[in-house]
């Protein structure tokens, strides 16, 4: 073996292809750093700046009207309860409908044209801009006063959020049920279970963790949405005190951030930061919780 052939087998860093390789690797690493940077910056600003305005008064007081008192703007209490209530309303509507729709897609009509159409439709619905959901609910509920004569209301806000949750829940239920092995279905039928018993006692429990992952992700997305709320639930500075208050304007963390960030007063801006702190903490926890639940299931994607 001569010297030159031996040399061609060893790594030569000055070759054009090796230099090019190294350069591209460095560029891709740089891109990865740039992509992670916004998350780190946003989270740290929200945690540090927002966290510094958090105290017990901020958490429970009602916000003051802008400009009245430059020292204290009150708190974000009603907005926290408002976000919670509207998320609950959205869940009450979208979880049964979404899980039911997903059950139909996965268990009843596996490849029929209607199922294809529904799958396509839920993908399209997922792509509908959230502000359009707000415009839609404004047109059919707020401006027609169909809900017992009330216009802007927490219920209208919750319904518009449910439109955003629906496609995610349908899709994850469908996919979660499809991961359950068919053997389990045949075994259930074999011991004489009806289809209803099979679904409620065998496949739904087996897919439960994957479905909850999807539901939590949908909930996290809906709780942070602003666009559908600004002309359905509007905003309110007061706590709700009775059931009837559901039919009136309701505040939420996201709309509070939007309104108060654009106020010229420092005290209001601080409340916006405090509200972002709470919102981001809740949403990140929901996301991390959903990832953790997703790893628990017997047939979850992460395990198969």
């Amino acid at each position, binding site marked *: 073996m001569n010297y030159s052939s031996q040399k061609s087998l060893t790594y030569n860093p000055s070759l054009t292809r090796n230099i090019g390789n190294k350069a591209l*690797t460095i560029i891709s690493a740089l891109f990865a750093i740039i*992509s992670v940077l916004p998350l780190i910056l946003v989270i740290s600003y929200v945690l540090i700046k927002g966290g510094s305005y958090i105290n017990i008064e901020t958490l429970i007081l009602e916000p003051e009207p802008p400009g009245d008192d430059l020292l204290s703007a009150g708190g974000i209490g009603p907005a926290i309860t408002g976000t919670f209530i509207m998320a609950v309303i959205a869940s009450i509507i979208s979880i049964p409908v979404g899980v039911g*729709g997903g059950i*139909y897609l996965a268990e009843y009509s596996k490849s029929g044209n209607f199922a294809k159409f529904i799958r396509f439709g839920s993908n399209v619905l997922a792509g509908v801009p959230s502000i*359009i959901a707000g415009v*839609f609910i404004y047109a*059919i509920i707020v401006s027609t006063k169909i809900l017992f004569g009330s216009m802007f209301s927490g219920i209208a806000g919750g319904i518009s959020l449910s439109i955003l949750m629906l*496609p995610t829940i349908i899709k994850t239920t469908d996919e979660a049920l499809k991961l359950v092995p068919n053997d389990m279905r045949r075994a259930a039928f074999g011991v004489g279970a009806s289809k209803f018993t099979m679904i409620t006692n065998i496949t739904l429990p087996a897919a439960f963790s994957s479905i909850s992952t999807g539901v939590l992700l949908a909930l996290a997305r809906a709780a942070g949405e*602003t666009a559908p709320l600004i002309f359905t639930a509007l905003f309110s500075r007061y706590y709700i005190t009775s059931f009837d208050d559901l039919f009136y304007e309701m505040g939420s963390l996201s709309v509070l951030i939007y309104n108060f960030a654009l106020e010229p007063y420092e005290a209001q801006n601080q409340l916006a930061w405090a509200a972002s702190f709470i919102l981001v903490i809740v949403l990140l926890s929901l996301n991390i919780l959903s990832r953790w639940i997703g790893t628990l299931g017997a047939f979850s994607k992460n395990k198969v």
Partner: protein
Amino acid sequence: MDKASTSKFSLRTRPTSERLVDVGFKNIVVAMASMVAVVLFSIFAVVYYESTESISRYGLRFLFSSAWNPVTDEYGAFTAIYGTLFTSIASLLIAIPLGVGTAIFITENIIPEYIRNVIGIMVELLAAIPSVVLGLWAVFIMEPFIRPFLNIIYELFGFIPFFSTQPLGAGMMPAILILVVMILPIITSISKDSLKQVPSKLRQAAYGIGASRWTTIFKVIIPASISGITGGVLLALGRAMGETMAVTMIIGNSNNFSWSIFAPSYTISSMLANQFGEADGSQVSSLMYAALILMILTLLVNVFAQWIVKKLSLKYQ
């Protein structure tokens, strides 16, 4: 079969109640699945119905006029449509190399796997930050930070129409940058998933005939996963076009058309967010017309995304 065994192993007939539950349950879930179609169609029907007045009055002129005058009742959405398309496409052009580059970096074995997983999770958590919080951050932190840099560009390249106004705060450029932050997680996570699905045989074959890492990536891995990447990019485009809050807070909300990316502008969604609450009469109808245009744009992009994923996807299994 003798009598004893028949009585011992007789088949149970299903009681009527059980059959009713079965049929009822099926009908209920069919109805629930149909809700998707019902909601989708009613969104279209309602938005179309509400905008008929403006459609019949302005027709296609609405798309090419930038007048927006509630006093004279003259409306046109050109500025907003241009703003929507320009901001989303510009942000896409920045986000594609960043997102796909990141996806490649975390699917290649350049650094240890747990660091790659952490980067992947961090980029996906970025998607969990609500857009209104990103808007808040953009208004108070990002925009003041980048303004000096934009000023330098303005002073050096001000003769180019795209940079011809002085950056004074809210404007198209900060909106584009915040859109990049919003769509980056979509492009990264979908590209990552489709890069991971490329069978390792293809990579081994490329290495076997002497291809370097990046030759393999550009000539084998990316072509093999191009359907997923394109789908992700189109989904991101749809998201960018419909994105409302962060853009509304930072774009400046001005209906005056300007070529400059430093000038305040409008997108359809920010126009809706700003004006819908206080609008009445023919302005509502014009806003609904704009909403219809936005819906059709995002619908086309989303349908095209689904079509292209089906069309381009190579089957390896």
